[in-house]
């Protein structure tokens, strides 16, 4: 079965005044219909750029974006427009993602009219009401005529999700969609997205820096860990959090403070060799993590870029040492 949407060795470079940086370096990721997965990583790891590449808002510098098996950037006109509607982005900042001068009704009805899903105010009103109910903004009458500033952060984020739903998307990329809303309501937003995946078969990629959020959201799916533009581990969620294979994933999980004093105060640290994150302008050769990695082996990790390879337990990892230890296979070292 072909995946619904797929990044095939996609890279993206940006030219900055200081030089060319590779924000995303040969990332591959295939997603099936109705899948709910997470991309996690620290700032500058390329997770946001990956999300924008998935939505087609950015053109890859290399590699292909496939939707239903077709290369998106080779399609034109109506096909491209169909793809654009099929893949929607939910932004991080609910204060910036809604137009402050437009009411909820105006925001939600515009795409309905544009794409002929409503031809009269009455139809639009009915459709908008239904959308608001679907994102748990009820009773809808209380929200339909409001301006964004009259809503809380969580309510705005729901309107943003409803807006994405106006075009019946097949894929939603949610970039840090809960990090700016209050802690006490994050889970309900995640549940809303999960319900869309489960009930309507929407594929959802949640991009987050928060591993705990990722663990909850992708508890039945996968988590991809990114570091300096590369996917370093892609694994089923529970196996990733209980037994991370990549030393970077292991370091992250060991470092994350937890909302539980007993657990968090007795966590075993993974000591890194350096706290310094290399600049994207001058990435280290070989594995970009090797200058910090406790497992790094000279002559191997600083020379050869590790590929994302399968290891036992439906998971993939880009680490020479982890692959060797978990499969017994050695990476070929150039002489």
């Amino acid at each position, binding site marked *: 079965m072909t995946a619904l949407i797929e990044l095939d060795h996609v890279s993206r470079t940006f030219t900055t005044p200081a030089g060319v940086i590779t924000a995303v370096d040969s990332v591959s990721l295939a997603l099936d219909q109705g899948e709910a997965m997470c991309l996690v990583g620290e*700032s500058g790891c390329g997770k946001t750029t990956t999300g924008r590449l998935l939505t087609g808002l950015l053109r890859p510098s290399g590699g292909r974006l496939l939707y239903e098996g077709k290369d998106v950037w080779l399609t034109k006109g109506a096909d491209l427009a169909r793809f654009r509607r099929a893949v929607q982005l939910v932004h991080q900042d609910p204060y910036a993602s809604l137009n402050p001068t437009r009411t909820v009704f105006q925001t939600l009805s515009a795409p309905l009219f544009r794409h002929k899903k409503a031809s009269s105010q009455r139809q639009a009103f009915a459709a908008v009401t239904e959308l608001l109910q679907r994102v748990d903004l009820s009773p809808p009458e209380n929200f339909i005529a409001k301006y964004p500033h009259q809503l809380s952060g969580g309510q705005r984020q729901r309107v943003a999700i409803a807006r994405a739903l106006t075009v019946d998307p097949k894929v939603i990329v949610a970039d840090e969609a809960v990090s700016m809303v209050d802690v*006490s309501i994050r889970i309900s937003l995640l549940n809303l997205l999960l319900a869309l995946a489960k009930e309507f078969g929407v594929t959802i990629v949640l991009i987050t820096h928060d591993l705990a959020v990722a663990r909850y959201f992708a508890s039945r799916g996968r988590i991809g860990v990114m570091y300096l533009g590369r996917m370093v581990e892609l694994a089923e969620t529970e196996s990733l959090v209980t037994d991370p294979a990549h030393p970077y994933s292991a370091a992250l999980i060991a470092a994350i403070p937890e909302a539980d004093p007993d657990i968090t105060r007795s966590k075993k640290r993974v000591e890194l060799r350096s706290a310094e994150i290399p600049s994207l302008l001058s990435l280290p050769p070989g594995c970009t993590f090797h200058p910090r990695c406790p497992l790094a082996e000279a002559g191997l990790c600083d020379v050869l870029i590790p590929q994302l390879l399968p290891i036992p337990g439906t998971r993939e990892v880009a680490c020479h040492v982890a692959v060797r230890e978990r499969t017994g296979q050695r990476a070929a070292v150039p002489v």
Partner: protein
Amino acid sequence: MPVLSVRDLSIDYSTRRGPVHAVRNVSFELEKSETLAIIGESGSGKTTLAVGLIRLSPRGTKVTSGQILYTKNGLTTDIRTLDDDDLREYRWAEAAMVFQAALNSFNPVITIWEQFNDTARAHGMKDKHKVRDRADELLDLVHLDAKRVLHAFPHELSGGMKQRVLIALALMLEPQLVILDEPTTALDILTQRSIIDLLRQLREKLGFSMIFISHDLSIAAELADRMITMYAGRVVEEANVDDMFYRPRHPYSVGLLRAVPRVSGALGSVASIPGSPPDLMRLPVGCSYAPRCPYAIDACRAEEPPLVAVDTPKHEAACIRWKHVAEILGSNAEVPVAEKLA
């Protein structure tokens, strides 16, 4: 004698729509070398309270009642009565504050050394050699290489390094009290971890008291001795950290704890609090949390519940239903709320 004793503090600020009671009748005490976490979400009043403690409130803010009693060497002063000179002295030498926003508010055109020198001069340290020695010592304390960092401009430092410099600056005059506003929020996980470990070391080495303000429960779990939960401008629960995490008695604390998933251990029954925080201009009659509270009864909507001792004398909650909450959660096991409710 506590280092800081806040009594019945209320702070208003004015908006276009009228005055907002941002902090209402807050009282707490902070002992020497103790770490207190003030936890709350947007609109809880935690930041207004924090800046109120060092009287750095923005224009339009007004303390309407209460005392902020600061004690040093047996001498107690009410911060509210200090004049401008004494206040400046108090702000760095006694109680230093590290703002989250300060990460981006370094003057971009002067070096870190000049930041140190300016701060020192503002407090009467004129001898550059002494300042230099002190800067070296402080940067060493926060694990930064003084030779490299002092000559750097702010943009040349990473977020974590800037946060370390801010902490070092705050410690320059050996304050007894350090107030931190969201100390790790803008930082990456690995950097967060190193800052948390650093704060823990510094506290042990220097013995200062610490108050930090955060919406992040995990930082409280890491560092706090005691915790205060704020909701709609009031303290709704105060307890030592274990009691708060494993035996909370206010339904809001319960809801907040349950809303935060973990990476390690069982996920449990994670859930959000229904509804949204109240509009501070139109607070409901009775308990502000009642409209969102699963345990609310009619009596909750009649009048605002006072803070009362629960379980132990050092554990207080502003809830008339705390016994009911205690029954549901049980008293003993050191198990997080989400697991108990699963």
